[in-house]
């Protein structure tokens, strides 16, 4: 039988394990809502009983919005940004915590019981922190150098009398950085998959083999999905702008959240592809870390 393409196999896993994406989506939405709560409360105190708020409901009057942000009652932008950043960081930490369970679930051909899911999360949390540190060093240095080169090119291009040249070169540089960053992401996704599926405590030892496994095919699959994510984001924003009436908060919420859901799904698709790729690249059969062929009756599913 012909083997499924990486993208198709990844998509099949994604379909089978929809619940992970849904949970992460709800987690992201909840935390983002909590991050926006300070703004909601403060802005509400100024807007809710003022007729001036109509300028923001029927369309979007930028001057009114700027004036709102300048009101002392709304508080400092710095504090509101900090609140949102804190919750975004919390989402990042929780993703770091739950991701091992997701990888295990992707590799499993059955619905992973909740204890196994959380056991994988707990057992690999510290390992994922360590691999993150390696990632920041190994990917950060070349990407930092590339940004430095880009800055140099920008400076040189600024001397040109061709006004479009700096922008064109900047876009090319950012494109190259994006492609390189995508390679590093695929590489370290491979390392993360190996850490979980092989129960590898010495995370350093996963980096070399993961690099060797990061083929052009995997990178191309990542790139394809990333481009698709970009397209979906543009479509989502376009729909938001063109079909949702300015005063429809619910419509904007639905379109916005659908866009975020699809966006999140794309990244999980990449991770599913990473698991498939890892499994196909393994010469030795992968032994499930915590085999549990039979779910006891009445057990709660994760």
């Amino acid at each position, binding site marked *: 039988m012909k083997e499924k393409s990486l993208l198709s196999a990844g998509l099949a896993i994604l379909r089978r394990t929809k619940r992970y994406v849904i949970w992460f989506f709800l987690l*992201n939405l909840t935390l983002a809502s909590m991050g926006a709560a300070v703004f909601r409360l403060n802005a509400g105190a100024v807007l809710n009983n003022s007729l001036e708020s109509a300028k923001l409901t029927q369309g979007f*009057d930028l001057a009114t919005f700027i004036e709102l942000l300048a009101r002392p009652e709304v508080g400092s932008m710095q504090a509101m940004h900090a609140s949102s950043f804190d919750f975004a960081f919390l989402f990042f930490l929780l993703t770091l915590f739950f991701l091992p369970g997701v990888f295990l679930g992707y590799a499993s051909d059955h619905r992973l019981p909740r204890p196994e899911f959380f056991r994988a999360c707990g057992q690999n949390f510290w390992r994922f922190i360590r691999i993150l540190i390696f990632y920041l060093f190994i990917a950060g240095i070349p990407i930092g150098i590339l940004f430095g080169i880009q800055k140099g090119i920008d400076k040189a291009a600024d001397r040109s009398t061709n006004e479009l040249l700096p922008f064109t070169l900047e876009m090319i540089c950012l494109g190259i950085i994006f492609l390189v960053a995508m390679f590093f992401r695929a590489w370290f996704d491979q390392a993360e998959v190996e850490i979980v599926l092989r129960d590898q405590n010495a995370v350093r030892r996963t980096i070399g083999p993961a690099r060797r496994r990061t083929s052009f095919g995997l990178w191309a699959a990542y790139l394809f999905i990333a481009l698709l994510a970009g397209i979906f984001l543009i479509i989502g924003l376009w729909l938001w702008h063109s079909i949702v009436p300015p005063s429809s908060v619910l419509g904007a919420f639905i379109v*916005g959240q659908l866009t975020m859901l699809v*966006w999140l799904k794309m990244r999980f698709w990449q991770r599913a592809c990473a698991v498939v790729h890892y499994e196909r690249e393994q010469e030795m059969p992968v032994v499930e870390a915590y085999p549990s062929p039979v779910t006891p009756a009445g057990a709660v599913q994760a």
Partner: protein
Amino acid sequence: MTLRPLAAVGLCVCMLSAGSLAEPAATAPGLSIPNTVSAINSPTPMSQRVVHYEIDAKYDPKTHQLDGAETLTYHNLTGQPLDTFPFHLYLNAFQPKATWIRETKRDGTRDTSFEKWEDKNYGSDEIKGFEVVGQGELTSQLQYIQPDDNNKDDKTVIQIKLPKPIPPDGYVQFKIKFHDQFPETLERTGYKRDFLLAGQWFPKVGVWIHGGWNCHQFHGATEFFADFGVYDVNITVPQNEVVGASGVRVADTKNGDGTETYAYHGDDIHDFAWTASPRYMIKDDVYQGTMGPVALHIMMQPAHWSQAQRHDEILQNTLKRFEAWYGPYPYKTLTLVDPEPGSAAEGMEYPTFITGGTAWWMPKGIYLPELVIEHEFGHQYWYGMVATNEFEDAWMDEGINSYTEVKVLDDILGKNTSILNIMRVKMGEREQQRLGYIRDPDFDPMTRKGWLFFDYGSYADVTYGKTASVLVTLESVIGEDTMRKAMHEYFMKYRFTHPVPEDFLKTIEEVSGKDLRWYFNQAVYGTNVMDYEVLKIDSSPTDWWKPNFKESKKPGETEYESEVIVHRKGDFVMPLDILVKFDNGDSVREHWDGQDRWIRYSYDKKAKVASAEVDPDHKNWLDRNFFNNSKTAEPDGTATRKLANYWTFVSEFFGQFLAGWLI
């Protein structure tokens, strides 16, 4: 020039003494200021001409240096002998210890914040020779003076004392050789790559007014004040350069050495600027003005060529409204320069010569090019013709111009969309001006001298934003039509003169027939801040005390005692209207003189108060907080939810970005 009696001497901070006049008066024979009219659509001169500049300038784009020979003929219309003459040498401002650099480093300016000094920042204007015809070579007699801040390192004003004074109505001719080094544009003037904007580039004599010389140093925010006259300028540049300048081009000569000389003539102007770049693309058009045709010379950057028509349209539309509302544009030309990107020379005004500012990507719904072009063209009226002293009364120049900018752009691009109208995001020009005002409403009065403001932010916000808001709000007091008539009257009466604040304010009072001192004292001369709020709205049943009383759910059955309290939080007093709406659809419009700190309105009706709003017609743009101008009985959280939804979306996106790329 408006001449004032000597009694007004004390009003002028930087007046320089005319000195003791021991020597007999002398005047060079055969001198005069030309009565030419070839650059204006008028059969006779329109200004009282005081100066005639004849300048030969040779520019080297490789070194960014210029050698100039200037002949200045000055007509002494001061009514007294003059033996002292101050001159601006403004390119000397671009030196690390100069007042301009000090002020901009301390206060900021529109373009520059200095982290380090670089050689390319250096600019200078050196006098190589200074001869007074009939009195000899006086270069060694020149002295730098610092009338504003006593900064001995500032060399932006130089003074000469003549051996023999110039008698009243006499003439004097100065022959000056000078050498310029242009800076890479930090702001306003200089070069960027192969582009040059030459402003403030030649020695320019000060203005005798109010019984003394007015010749300020080059400051962080202000730079303009000069006498009207005639300019004949020859500019020699390499042949590949495309040149544009103030006035009318009268000759173009190839010199045979790879250079070309362009001759320009200007009538009834008080400054001269020019530009050169090998890459300009030119769009010429003609505007049919009320006094005659005006040649529009639009000099575009190649990457912006697709916006040439956009530049032309806003220029023509602006001209049309200025002519219809304020008065005729008398000049035969207007040159609009689209300057080199990143040159910090965007948005500048010189007589018959302005710079715009755009970018290659500028979409149609973002009206920044229109805003800049309209604003700079407006300066042809409020600076160019009504030649106020920008140093001392910047609000009469930038501020009145910002007010007419609101009126003109609102008319062309729509009241709430004249800055931005893209993807449902809107912003009007009057809102933009008000945003400036509410940032810094109380540090400085509008009448503060330009270099004495708290900082550049306060200068810009008060001079532009507050003045525009004050004049827009004034319309609610005297009426929009009356205000327009007053502006027209002011322009026609004071064009080609140097009016002072009271000239403008009295014109408004005369045209409106109203005593407006109460308003001007607070808004123009004061720092009073206006903030009226609807403090409380409340409705309670009249029969609440009766046993077994039950409030009916049906509207119109229960009688209520309602009250609305309006509070004056600020120290600016202004009469205002209050609109009270009831839940049965009725409404009442109240008028309050705004004097007391608060006022209570009571109503007995079979309806509850639904909302109350101060200034329901939204005519008052000086109130610093629009949100508390109204209060509703029932909250409506739609706007909050909408904004919170945006905020949540962006936070989610950021969270996903972080988690997606790092793990």
